[in-house]
C-alpha cells in the first residue's frame, strides 16, 4: 500500500468533473490515477448497507485491483493508448458541481467553522440536479441520464467480489451465456480497455450507447480468448435502478412520489392478474411537498397500478419510470388505473 499516494476526498464541492467521472450513486468510490491525471482504474460499491456491499467488494478484491494498477503504472506510458478508453470525457455541462445553478448555494470549501455537514455536496447530487435542471427546462430526460453505469448483471454477468475481475456466475440464456462466457473467466479487457474491477466494467457499459458486438478478452485455463457479446439495441433497458439514491427523485418526477414494486408470480395468481399485464403495487406513497403529488391524487399504499401513462404491459418499476420520463415532459398530465379492494379506479398525475 505504501506504493500509492492515498488521498481521501470527502465532498463533491470543487470536484473536477472533467476528471472524476464515475457512478455518482456509489457509496464508496476509488480512482486510481497517474499524477498526470491519466485514469488507470475505477473501483467502488453501489450498496448502502453492509450485507449488500459485501456482495460487491472486499479488501481482497481491492488488493487485487491495486496489484493490477501497479502493473499498469509500471508499464506507463508505453501502455497509454490502451488506457485511452478509460479516460473521462472533457466535455461536461459544469466543471465543478457548485457551478450547477441548482447547487450554487454551496461553496467550494466546507464550512468547518459552521454547519460543516450541511455545507457538503454529496456525489449523487451531481446527477440529481442535472436531471432536475433538464426537467425544469421542459425536456424529457435522455436515456443515459436515466440508465447510468449499468452493472454487468444486465448482460447476465455476476462478478466475484473477492477478486478484481473474475466471473462468478453467468445467467442461463443470458447474453453472456450465449456468447460463451464461463464461470471462472478472468476478464482482462472490455472493448480493448484493461479491466481491473466491476466499476471498470460499468465504465465500459456506460459508454456503450447502442447494440452490437462487445468484445471481452478473458483468460481461461491460462490462455486468452475473445468472447463477443451481441447486444440488442435495448440491451440496457432492464438495468436495475431501484437501488440508486437518485431514483428517489425520479419517483417524484415520474410517479408523483410513489414507490412501486412488481407483483410476484404468486400475487399475480392470487389476484387474477394476467401474465404480461402491468401490476405494480404502491409500496410507499410520499407524504410531503412535491413527493405527495400521488397522495393528493388519491393514491394509497397497497394500490395496484394496472396502467400508467398508456403503458399496460408488465415491467419493473425502473423500466416504467424510464419510459415515462423519457417520453413525457414536466407539467404533462398522465392517467393511471389502479385496483383497490378489488375495484378498479382512475387517477391523474401531473409530472414534475
Amino acid at each position, binding site marked *: 500500500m505504501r506504493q500509492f499516494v492515498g*488521498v481521501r476526498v470527502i*465532498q463533491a464541492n470543487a470536484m473536477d468533473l472533467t476528471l472524476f467521472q464515475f457512478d455518482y450513486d456509489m457509496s464508496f468510490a476509488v480512482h486510481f490515477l497517474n499524477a498526470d491525471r491519466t485514469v488507470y482504474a475505477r473501483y467502488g460499491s453501489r450498496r448502502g448497507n*453492509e450485507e449488500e456491499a459485501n456482495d460487491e467488494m472486499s*479488501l481482497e478484491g481491492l488488493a487485487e485491483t491495486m496489484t493490477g494498477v501497479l502493473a499498469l503504472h509500471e508499464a506507463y506510458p508505453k501502455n497509454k493508448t490502451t488506457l485511452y478508453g478509460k479516460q473521462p470525457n472533457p466535455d461536461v455541462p459544469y466543471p465543478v458541481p457548485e457551478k450547477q445553478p441548482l447547487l450554487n448555494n454551496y461553496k467550494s470549501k466546507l464550512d468547518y467553522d459552521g454547519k460543516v455537514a450541511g455545507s457538503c455536496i454529496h456525489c449523487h447530487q451531481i446527477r440529481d440536479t442535472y436531471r432536475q435542471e433538464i426537467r425544469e427546462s421542459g425536456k424529457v430526460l435522455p436515456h443515459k441520464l436515466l440508465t447510468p453505469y449499468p452493472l454487468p448483471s444486465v448482460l447476465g454477468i455476476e462478478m466475484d467480489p473477492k477478486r478484481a475481475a473474475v466471473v462468478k456466475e453467468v445467467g442461463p440464456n443470458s447474453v453472456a451465456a450465449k456468447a460463451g462466457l464461463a464461470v471462472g473467466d478472468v476478464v482482462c479487457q472490455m472493448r480493448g480497455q484493461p479491466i481491473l474491477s466491476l466499476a471498470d466494467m460499468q465504465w465500459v457499459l456506460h459508454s456503450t450507447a447502442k447494440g452490437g458486438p462487445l468484445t471481452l478478452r478473458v483468460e481461461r485455463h491460462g490462455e486468452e480468448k475473445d468472447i463477443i457479446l451481441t447486444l440488442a439495441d435495448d440491451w440496457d433497458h432492464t438495468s436495475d435502478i431501484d437501488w440508486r439514491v437518485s431514483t428517489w427523485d425520479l419517483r417524484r418526477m415520474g410517479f408523483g412520489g410513489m414507490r412501486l414494486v412488481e407483483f410476484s408470480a404468486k400475487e399475480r395468481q392470487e389476484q387474477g392478474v394476467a401474465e404480461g399485464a402491468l401490476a405494480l403495487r404502491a409500496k410507499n406513497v410520499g407524504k410531503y411537498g412535491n413527493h405527495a403529488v400521488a397522495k393528493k391524487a388519491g393514491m394509497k399504499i397497497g394500490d395496484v397500478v394496472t396502467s400508467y401513462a398508456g403503458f399496460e404491459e408488465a415491467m419493473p418499476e425502473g423500466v416504467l419510470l424510464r419510459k415515462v420520463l423519457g417520453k413525457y415532459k414536466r407539467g404533462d398530465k398522465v392517467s393511471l388505473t389502479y385496483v383497490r379492494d378489488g375495484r378498479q379506479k382512475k387517477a391523474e398525475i401531473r409530472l414534475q
Partner: protein
Amino acid sequence: MKRFLILAMAGSLGAAEPKKTRDEMVHEDRAALAENDAWVYNDLARAVAEAEKAKKPLMVIHRCIP
C-alpha cells in the same frame, strides 16, 4: 493504511454510527486522519504533487463525510 481502508470501507457499508451529531463526526473524522501520515486528507493538489515527486500512482478515495 490498511487500517484506514478497512474503516473507510466499513463506513461505506453502513457500520453502526455512534450517537453524535453529523458535524461532530466530520470534525472527528478530520482529526483522526490528520494523525495518519499514510494518507492525505482532502487535499488532492498536495496528493498529486506527492505522487509526481515519488513517481507513485494515486489512490483517490471518494467517501462522504460521516
